[in-house]
């Protein structure tokens, strides 16, 4: 049984907020999270013939499958590829207001995550914190970073990798696992 527009609209009304939070926890950007939500539901309508479930719960599970692919696609391409949105001729949306931005961060508990990142950076060895600040925050290229620290470019790359791995290990208990859950 394919997915009807009526059922999709019903699922949207009931779960859109949940999907936005799902995306925001994975891409850390409320604007991108809203775009991914739009693309997921649009893609669900476009590909509705491949839906084999019946109930709204079946549809939600199916949509989360699409959502996970959308997240992977975003990290691969570095942007939201809105093929389904464009195919349906959906108008470009406005930007989020400050209140909406904060509300999505609240739904995704991004504020807590941000505080945890800041705390973990504070606790890291100074060498790791410094190299992450230069590479991630100031977005320095490796040659410039290496010159700044007076080390070789190869050493700079290795130091950034070590620092990122160390930070990931520290943050792992606080990162999302399954949809709708937060460790």
């Amino acid at each position, binding site marked *: 049984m394919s997915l009807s527009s*009526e059922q999709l609209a019903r699922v*949207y009304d009931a779960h859109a907020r949940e999907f936005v939070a799902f995306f925001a926890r994975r891409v850390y950007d409320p604007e991108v999270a809203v775009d991914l939500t739009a693309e997921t539901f649009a893609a669900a309508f476009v590909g509705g013939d491949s839906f084999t479930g019946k109930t709204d719960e079946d549809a939600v599970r199916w949509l989360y499958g699409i959502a996970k692919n959308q997240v992977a696609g975003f990290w691969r391409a570095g942007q939201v590829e809105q093929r389904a949105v464009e195919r349906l001729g959906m108008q470009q949306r406005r930007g989020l207001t400050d209140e909406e931005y904060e509300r999505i961060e609240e739904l995704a508990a991004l504020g807590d995550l941000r505080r945890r990142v800041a705390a973990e950076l504070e606790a890291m060895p100074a060498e790791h914190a410094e190299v992450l600040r230069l590479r991630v925050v100031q977005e320095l290229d490796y040659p410039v970073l290496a010159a700044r620290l007076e080390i070789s470019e190869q050493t700079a790359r290795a130091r950034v990798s070590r620092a990122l791995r160390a930070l990931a290990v520290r943050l792992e208990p606080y990162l999302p696992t399954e949809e709708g859950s937060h460790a």
Partner: protein
Amino acid sequence: MPDALFDDLPILGELGATLTAAMARAEATAGSSATAAAPPRRWRRPYGWLGTFLVLGLVGTTAAAGTLTVLRGSPIPGPKAEDTQPSMVQRSDSQHVLGLRANDPAAGHLPFAIRVGESEQGDICATVGQVDGDDFGIVGEDGRFRQLPAGIVDSCGRATGTDVAVAGARVLDAKRYEDVRTVIYGAGADDLKRAEILVRGKAIPLKIEDGAFVGVVPNYPEDIGLQLRLRIGDRTVTHGFGTGRALVLDPSGPAWQMSRGGSQSRDRKTQVNCANLQQVHRADGTRMSSTPPVCFRAPVEHHKLPQMPVPVTYNARTFHTGDRSHDPPGRSPSVWRWQAPSRTVVWGQIDGKRVKQIDLVAPSSVRQRVRKIYGDSFGVVLPASVNAKHIRLLVTMRDGSTRTYSRPVVPTSSMRP
């Protein structure tokens, strides 16, 4: 279905409405029988989305009849004949709204159009407005659409063969900065081959119909360095609408302007000349921001411009929202405050007789030629992510030599002579 479904996130309500409309269009196109059975969507913004609803021609909506129309007000009265210059009195049989449409950057707003005609004296006249069905008018700040009668004309002019007869940029102000719009229009060019607007240096082409064009962009013209570039025959004509000589563009917000001033000592032997950047206007009720001044002292020489002691004086600094001078008001004329978003600013003064050009270099591939303002000052506003401490100025002197400045040169920031 509860009324307050997405009260905390209106964007989701708008997105849902867009999705529902798109699905209905797709099903109607595919001839699906599901369209007739689909329940009507609850419109959270009847002004914007009902326009789309009407285009679809769906039936069975439960929305009340009063909400199926755009909010309207009485037509704007036209001017009295005795108040109108003859050259701007249009022949009623010549007026028509062209098929050109310029979509508002925000979804759900009426598109802009241009109405052209001829005056009784043969001038080409143009009026910009918005279209709602067959009606031509304008939406006011109260959200109501009001028709613009035939007597209302923005401008008239005579075709010269080398330029359009009329061209202009009409600013539609709004309570919120992000709702401000500038409508660029022109008409009356026989051999108009290309029309484009430049926004922050980026060209955006406009469609042309009968030698006329219309486009709409967000923000005030000065905030985006707005220019209009036309190709007429084999000539290129450029009109600047937001390109004042003292203007400095912001990365994304209101523009800045270089302000200069000075004072003389009581004995008129010494003077101080200062320059700073000030916001051209505010965004959303914040106070206007400004930088502290960069000044130099020089002896007063009658009938001569003050001689700078060094070729370049400048400061480079990252300002954060809330930064301000700490001198008590009245104690120092150098009071300043920063209410704008964080920015890295480089500003200063130049001895134009000695300095030929300046290039600004910063990490992350930031490099740009610095435009001289009136030949003796400059200002550059960059994102706060650019580290002010790592900015260098590469100065080429008129004698061919070059100098590199990696630290600010601020002889004084006091305006007292």
